[in-house]
């Protein structure tokens, strides 16, 4: 499975619910495992990571993941960012591989035999790196809004959310708010995924905290920094999971613990996109 969202719109609500359900032996794909997979690895959910950058952005390491790797308890399948992007693209496009100009002269292909090469039929001797399609059983994405038909809209960074979702057998979209279909249809360019491609929509305001939702709330950089000492100490980490994940029944419980002051402090001032005219043609 994959929980995607590059820095933006990382669905912690889903990660926490998976921890509460006590899932085990998951293969977790994500470009940047981030805190959400550090927490899931610490909780014992994961057997394997498929990834391209393993850190706490701007802070340092994901200590639970590092301990699991250095202890030999976590299998790794490693790419570069563009390799991971390509895996989802190939998966979404029903192609066996995605070609990219990377890896030549790097030790990554030696570390990961799934990185292969194909010869260009247009230039003798020109070999292009390829990565295989990735088709998660489930992809969970977070988004700003959806309607009851399952049409999902995002603005700001979209990362690999469209490709990761369309590569999956099932797609769960968690959104900040439900809106009328007419709001969606007024601006079809903003639709990341049409309803025909979405299995389920869940409404979970602030479900991406401590990551952010453009226009809704800021990245909680203080929490990302605070995570470093927590994650460094297994006992502290377990206590954190007990208190903030297993100790609350759902996302509403987490938000209540977080408190209205923290939530309010993350709210940005408004900055409207402005409106464009699609025209009414009849």
């Amino acid at each position, binding site marked *: 499975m994959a929980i995607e969202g590059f820095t933006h719109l990382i669905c912690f609500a889903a990660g926490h619910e998976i921890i509460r359900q006590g899932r085990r032996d998951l293969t977790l794909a994500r470009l940047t495992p981030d805190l959400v997979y550090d927490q899931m690895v610490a909780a014992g959910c994961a057997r394997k990571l498929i990834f391209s950058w393993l850190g706490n952005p701007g802070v340092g390491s994901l200590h639970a993941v590092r301990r699991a790797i250095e202890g030999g308890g976590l299998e790794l399948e490693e790419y570069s960012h563009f390799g991971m992007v390509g895996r989802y693209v190939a998966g*979404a496009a029903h192609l066996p591989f995605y070609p990219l100009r990377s890896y030549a002269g790097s030790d990554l292909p030696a570390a990961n035999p799934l990185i292969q090469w194909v010869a260009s039929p247009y230039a003798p001797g020109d070999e292009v790196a390829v990565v295989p399609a990735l088709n998660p059983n489930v992809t969970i994405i977070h988004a700003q809004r959806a309607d009851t038909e399952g049409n999902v809209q995002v603005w700001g960074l979209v990362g690999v959310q469209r490709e990761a979702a*369309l590569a999956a057998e099932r797609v769960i979209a968690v959104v900040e708010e439900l809106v009328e279909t007419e709001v969606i249809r007024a601006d*079809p360019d903003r639709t990341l995924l*049409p309803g*025909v*491609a979405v299995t389920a929509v869940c409404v979970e305001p602030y479900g991406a905290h401590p990551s952010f939702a453009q226009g809704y709330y800021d990245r909680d950089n203080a929490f990302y920094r605070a995570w470093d000492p927590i994650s460094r100490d297994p006992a502290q980490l377990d206590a954190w999971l007990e208190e903030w994940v297993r100790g609350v029944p759902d996302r509403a419980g987490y938000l209540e613990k977080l408190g209205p002051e923290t939530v309010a402090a993350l709210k940005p001032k408004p900055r409207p996109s402005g409106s464009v005219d*699609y025209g009414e*043609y*009849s």
Partner: protein
Amino acid sequence: MSGTPDELMVAAAAAELAGVRTVFVGIGLPNAAAILARRTVAPDLELIYESGVIGARPSRLPDSIGDPALVSGATATMSMHDLFAYFLQGGRIEVGLLGAAQVDRWGNLNTTVIGPYANPAVRLPGSGGACEIALNAARVVVVMSQSPRSFVEHVDFVTSPGHRHPDGRSRPAWAGGGPDTVITQLGVYRFGTDGEMQLTALQPGVDQADIDAASGWPIRRALA
């Protein structure tokens, strides 16, 4: 039931879309059929156009598949790359609606040339998206006019592959189901398990002699 030949074809094609969720629509009769189907037998039908529109709700019958009325009020617009790669090739299209100038018994469609490719008697528009629709939609419904020049023993050019190439090659393993139904002003045709076309229904007022007179090979019969 009566109507012009075009109306008969549109009504029969719309009936094929009953309960369908996603249809990839070409211009002309397919477009009229899809719009009719959504208003009747397939209220949840999402009209998907190769121009990059999903879930169009056109306020008028558009002249082209890239009409502005298809965009205003649609659920999604996207680049042709994303639409062809992730929706069509990605296996999310239940029905592809195609037209053709020629069809053979295996459902191979020609929209490229009449006569030899290098020196055509008539140059037709070519594939557009038809070649990939024929290969990637879960099933293909063809709407076309029937005559001895269009229902032929050998198409002059295979633009969009049917169940078997004239040279004997079969469909690749990754492909969708291919031609499922051919609808003309004379009849409705489906394909046997061996991939050969068979007549399954006559349009109102049509008899076997009309079919025979308009076909370039003796079409197998499988009337209900």
